[in-house]
C-alpha cells in the first residue's frame, strides 16, 4: 500500500482574471483522513476543490494525486438544476458513462443503484424525479452518485449548505459512518459549530492556509480572526469547541 498522500497541493495559486483566489496553498490529504476546509465566502474553498478536480486551472504550484485515484465529487446542491428531466436512478447511473455506452439501464446497474441507495437509507426513491425529494434525500442522492463509483476519496462542496438542522445531523452521521468504513473525505463548509467542529482535521483557508490541524487546536480566537477578519470567541461545550460570533447588532426597541 502506497504511503504517498492521496492529494498533495504544493504552493498552489489560482486566479479569476487578475484576482488571486488562492495564494501559495500547501495541503495534503492522506488515505483514511476526514478533512474539512473552512473559511469565509470568497476565501477560495470551492476554487481549491475545483483545482483538485481539474476543473479550474492552477496558475502556480502543483497538485499531484496518487495514480489511478478514483474521485467521488458531490457539488453544492444549490448548483443542481432540479427541473432537469431525470430520475434518481438515471442521475446515479450517469457516473458509468465512461464504462458503458448502452443507453438503457441494465438489470445489474439497477441492482447496484438499489444497493447504494439502501446503504444511504433512501432505497425507495430510485424511480422518483429529483425534484420530488426532500432536502436530506437530495443530498443523499448526490452522495449516492459519488459512492456509485466506489471512490477512494469523497470530495464534497458545502454538504450542509441550505439544509435544516435535522438534515445536517443526518448528513454528518452518514459521513461519519462512511469514514468509519475507511473512506477518505475532503469537504468544504461554512458551518463551524454544526459540522466543522465535529471533524478530526480542519484547514482554515482565506486565500492561503491560516491553520491546519485538530479543531481543538485550530478553532482559536486568533486563528478565526485571521481567517474571517472578525473577532470570535471560542467556548467549550460538551467537550467540543463552540464558536461564538461577536458581531451582534442591537435590534430596534431592544433595551427600552
Amino acid at each position, binding site marked *: 500500500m502506497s504511503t504517498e498522500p492521496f492529494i498533495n497541493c504544493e504552493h498552489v495559486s489560482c486566479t*479569476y*482574471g487578475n484576482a488571486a483566489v488562492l495564494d501559495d496553498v500547501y495541503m495534503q490529504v492522506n488515505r483514511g483522513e476526514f478533512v474539512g476546509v473552512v473559511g469565509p465566502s470568497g476565501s477560495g474553498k470551492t476554487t481549491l476543490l*475545483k483545482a483538485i*478536480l*481539474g*476543473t479550474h486551472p492552477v496558475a502556480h504550484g502543483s497538485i499531484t494525486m496518487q495514480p489511478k485515484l478514483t*474521485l467521488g*465529487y458531490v*457539488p453544492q446542491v444549490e448548483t*443542481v*438544476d432540479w427541473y*432537469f*428531466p*431525470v*430520475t434518481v436512478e*438515471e*442521475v446515479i*447511473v*450517469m*457516473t*458509468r*458513462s*465512461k464504462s*458503458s*455506452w448502452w*443507453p438503457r439501464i441494465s438489470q445489474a446497474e439497477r441492482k447496484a443503484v438499489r444497493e447504494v441507495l439502501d446503504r444511504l437509507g433512501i432505497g425507495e426513491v430510485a424511480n422518483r*424525479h429529483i*425534484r420530488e425529494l426532500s432536502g436530506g434525500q437530495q443530498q443523499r442522492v448526490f452522495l449516492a*452518485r459519488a459512492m456509485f*463509483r466506489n471512490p477512494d476519496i469523497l470530495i464534497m462542496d458545502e454538504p450542509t449548505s441550505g439544509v435544516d438542522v435535522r438534515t445536517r445531523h443526518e448528513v454528518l452521521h452518514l459521513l461519519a459512518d462512511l469514514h468509519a468504513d475507511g473512506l477518505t473525505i475532503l469537504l468544504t463548509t461554512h458551518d463551524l459549530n454544526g459540522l466543522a467542529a465535529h471533524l478530526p482535521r480542519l484547514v482554515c483557508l482565506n486565500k492561503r492556509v491560516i491553520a491546519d490541524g485538530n479543531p481543538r487546536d485550530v478553532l482559536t480566537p486568533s486563528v478565526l480572526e485571521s481567517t474571517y477578519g472578525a473577532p470570535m470567541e471560542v467556548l467549550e461545550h460538551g467537550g467540543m469547541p463552540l464558536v461564538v460570533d461577536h458581531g451582534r447588532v442591537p435590534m430596534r426597541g431592544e433595551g427600552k
Partner: protein
Amino acid sequence: MLAFDLFEPYGFEFFQRGIIVATIAGALCGLLGVFVVLRGMSYIGHGLSHAVFGGAAASAVIGINFFVGAGIWGIISGVLIARVARRRVLGADAAIGVVTTASFALGLALMNRYGQASKSIEAVLFGSVLGVKVADIVAVSLVAVFALAVIVAWYRKLLFSTFDPDVAHVSGVNVSVVEVVLLSLLSLTILVTMRVIGTLLISALLVIPAAAARMTSNSFSKLLWISPLIGAVTCFVGMNVSYHLDTSASATIILLDALVFIVVYTVAGTRNRMKMASLGHV
C-alpha cells in the same frame, strides 16, 4: 372531392421532395433541440444559423460547393464559440454574439458586393422548401442518421455533460469533446436544413418542439422521441397546410409549432394547477 384536394400536392415532384426533407429536418431539429433547450443554448441555434449564413454566402461567391463551404464554416464557428466561452472572462452569450454576428455581417457584405450570388443567398436566408433537390434529401437523411447514431452511442455522456458538466469531467467524460461534437452536429443540422426553412426561422424549429416536449415529460429518454415527433409532424402538416392556404412553408411550420407549444403549455399548466389543488396547495 375533399380527399382528392388533400392529395393534390403529392402529384408534384417538388412537393414530394419538399415534404420528405421537411419532415426529416423537423425530426432532426427536434432531436438536437432537446440538448439545445436543456443546456440553455436556445440562442446558439439562432447564432449558429446566422454564422452558417456567412459560410453559405462565401461559398456562393467563391463558387465552391454549398455544403462544403458552409459546413466547414459552421463547424469552425461552433468550435470558436466553445473556445471563447470556455475563457471565463466572456460568457457563452457574448461568445455567440461576437462570432455569429461577425459571420452574419460578412455574409451580408458579400451579398451586397456580389449581386449575382444574391438569389442563392436569399434562399438560404428565407428558405425554399419547394425548391428542394434530391441532394438535399440525401444530405438531411445522412445527417439525421449520423446524429441519431452519435446520440445513441454517446447517450450517457451527452446526458451527463448536459446535466452536470463538472461532475461529468471528474467522472472521466471528456466534456470539451462532447461539446464540440454537439456543436458540430448542430452546425451540420443547420447547414442541411437552412435551405428548407431558412436561417431566420431555424432557431424556432430547434427550440419550440423541444420546449413543448419538455412540458409533457420528466424523462430525458422520452423527450428524445417526443420532441422529434412534434418536429416531424408539424413540418409534415405545415407543408400540406401551406400548399392549400398558399402561405410560406417555413412560416406555416413555425406557426404550427407555436400552436402546439401554446396548447401543451395550457394543458400542462391546467394539469399542474389541478395536481396542486388535489394536494391542498391551492
